[in-house]
């Protein structure tokens, strides 16, 4: 009896950490854009959703290898990030009206959702993705864990590390960091901050595309998955203070695990609303996040 409880707990933790890693990736995209521009990309979830469908198209429809599908999704969402920047942030940034930028992003997110619904299926149509590996569980310290989950978790962490390396060691990454740190100074050293912002939107979206490709074999794809993942990513980011990448990662894992545990031990339906409740409570009571690291900036 005891061991069975442990088994269940282990399974929940594994599932929670795996989905949490993916939430963290989505949250990183939200944070990167927020730090640089002071706005939350409301269409970020749609980047994720379309990334997933692009991977599905490459892998399932055209039978291309998974890694090629991954690259296609990342490239496609990178472009989508540029489109988002060009159609929402760029035309409105000079007005300094954040509400207008957010409304434009809401509009864009619906357009993208509508396009995806037209291209990849109607409401309630769920596309499934073949599993990456055979679904045999592996035994780790007495816990039976799906090898698929392990691969996804590992890949998600690899994406995070890759992203960290990009920020830490490439010139483009440092330009992004500098622009987020002090936009005026970035202009003064001759950076074209509009280009840097564009790159920031693109990179943020590309991470969402990567996350979507990793998530696809674990769940189903449908046009509304974007909003759902945006909410999770935003909740994770808010938990971390909205301005902190490490905070977003911790927030993602926390949210993933909380969802699983609350759904299993409190009430099943809670999995769907946990993120909403979390957003609402965090925004009101700890707007600086768990670690008090909010970086609030103007446009």
């Amino acid at each position, binding site marked *: 009896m005891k061991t069975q409880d442990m088994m269940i707990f282990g399974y929940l933790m594994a599932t929670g950490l795996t989905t949490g890693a993916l939430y963290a990736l989505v949250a990183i995209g939200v944070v990167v854009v927020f730090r640089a521009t002071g706005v939350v990309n409301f269409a970020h979830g749609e980047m994720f959703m379309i990334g997933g469908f692009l991977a599905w198209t490459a892998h399932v429809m055209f039978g291309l290898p998974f890694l090629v599908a991954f690259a296609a999704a990342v490239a496609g969402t990178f472009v989508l990030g540029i489109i988002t920047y060009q159609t929402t942030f760029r035309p409105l940034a000079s007005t300094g009206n954040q509400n207008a930028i957010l409304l434009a992003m809401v509009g864009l997110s619906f357009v993208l959702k509508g396009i995806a619904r037209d291209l990849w299926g109607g409401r309630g149509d769920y596309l499934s993705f073949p599993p990456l590996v055979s679904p045999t569980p592996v035994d780790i310290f007495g816990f039976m864990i799906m090898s698929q989950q392990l691969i996804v978790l590992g890949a998600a962490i690899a994406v995070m590390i890759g992203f960290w390396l990009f920020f830490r060691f490439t010139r483009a990454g*440092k330009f992004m960091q*500098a622009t987020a740190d002090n936009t005026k*100074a970035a202009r*003064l*050293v*001759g950076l074209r901050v509009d280009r840097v912002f564009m790159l920031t939107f693109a990179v943020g979206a590309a991470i969402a595309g990567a996350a979507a490709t990793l998530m696809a074999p674990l769940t189903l794809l449908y046009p509304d998955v974007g909003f759902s993942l945006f909410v999770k990513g935003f909740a994770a980011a808010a938990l971390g203070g909205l301005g902190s990448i490490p905070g977003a990662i911790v927030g993602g894992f926390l949210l993933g695990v909380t969802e699983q545990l609350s759904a299993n031990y409190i009430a099943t339906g809670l999995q769907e609303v946990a993120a909403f409740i979390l957003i609402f409570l965090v925004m009101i009571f700890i707007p600086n996040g768990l670690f008090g690291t909010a970086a609030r900036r103007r446009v």
Partner: protein
Amino acid sequence: MLQVEHLNVFYGITEVLRDVSFTVPQGEIFALLGGNGSGKTTIINTLCGLVKPRKGSIRLLGQDLAGRPCDQMVRAGLIQVPQGREVFASMTVRENLEIGAATRPAGEIAGDLQEMYALFPRLREKRDRLAGALSGGEQQQVAIARALMGRPRLLLMDEPSVGLSPIVVEGMVETIRDLNRTRGLTILIVEQNVGVAAAVASGAYVLKDGEIAYSGSAPDLIGNPEVLASYLGR
């Protein structure tokens, strides 16, 4: 080297610079003086492209640059050490300097970095510290070094002495003279601190309500009680 003619700048409907003309000769340090809100920062910001003039020309070595965006001004050699220093606080000193060379190929900057460390030994010591954690004087060094990393033809300095202790200001005055003497760097410096201006500048302009009110050699201007009264009288 720099010739500014008939510059007009507006913020919305208020005219902040009115028909401003002045020159800065090659290899000299010129000071720009004036009371609070007289438009000094606006001149500097117009010269480096942060603010667009409505009228007038900005000639650097004969090329008219008026109205160009910031990155083109920087590439042309007009680089600013801003008021309040504006370092990249969450990045290391070394990263700050590297980003200063953002407009230049990555391969070229290693030598310049060593040069900056030679010029400011303190920055070599603290190269891996976050710029936001440095003292005011050290941050000023970061700001100057960062601007130099962009290889300016004309260095624009906006009130570099504000908020620094007298000893630190002395060191900075030395640095400014040194940059001019050994590298032949042309500098336009905005100062509230008349002492600093007198110590470094050969020529000076006084700005009043967006217009050039006086111009002449720095010692003459600064020794002129009438000018000083109008300048300090704000």
